[in-house]
C-alpha cells in the first residue's frame, strides 16, 4: 500500500517540478530548453507507468487464466 501511494506522489512531484521549471525557463527566454524539460519529465513518468501497467497485465493474466 505504502509503495503504491509513493508512486502517485512521485508522479505528481515530477509534474509540479516540470511546470515550475518550464515557467522559469520561459521567463528566462529559453523556450527550447523548457520543451526539453517537459519531454524528459514525460519520459521518466512514462517509464514508471509502463512498468506499473505491465505488472497489472501480468496479474490479470494469472487471475483470469489468460495466456
Amino acid at each position, binding site marked *: *500500500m505504502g509503495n*503504491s*501511494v509513493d*508512486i*502517485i*506522489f512521485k*508522479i*505528481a512531484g*515530477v*509534474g*509540479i517540478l*516540470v*511546470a515550475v521549471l518550464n515557467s522559469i525557463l520561459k521567463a528566462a527566454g529559453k523556450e527550447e530548453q523548457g520543451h526539453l524539460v*517537459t519531454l524528459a*519529465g*514525460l519520459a521518466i*513518468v*512514462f517509464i*514508471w*507507468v509502463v512498468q*506499473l*501497467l505491465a*505488472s*497489472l*497485465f501480468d*496479474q*490479470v*493474466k494469472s*487471475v*483470469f*487464466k*489468460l495466456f
Partner: protein
Amino acid sequence: MEVMQIVAFGLIATVLIVVVKSQRPELGVLLSVAAGVILFLLVLDKIGSIMDVIKELTDRAGISMIYLGTILKIIGIAYIAEFGAQICRDAGEGAVATKIEFAAKIMIMVLAVPIVVAVLQLLLMLVP
C-alpha cells in the same frame, strides 16, 4: 478497513490529478493511469480468492472446466478493455476508446465461438 484506504487513496489521487492537469495535461493523464492501475491491483487479490471459490463450486457441480475457463477469460478481456477505453475517453480520445471496445468485442466473440458450436452440435444430435 481496506475500503477507507482505497477511498482515501482515490481522493488523494484526484486532488493531485487536478493540480497537475491544470499545468501539464499529459502528465495528468499518466497520473490517472497510475491511480487506476494501483486501485485495481489492490482489489485483484480479492478477485483471485473469489475465483478460487467459484472454481471449487464448479468442480463440485461436475461442470466441465472448459466453460468456466472461457467465462473467466471473457471477464478478464472485458475488464482490461474497459480500463483502457476509459483512460482514452478521459483523455478526450473517444475514437480510440471506441476502437478498443470494438477489438475487445471481436476477441470475446472468438472465445465464445467454440461454445456456440457445441450448442449447435447438441441441437443437431437432438434433431433426428
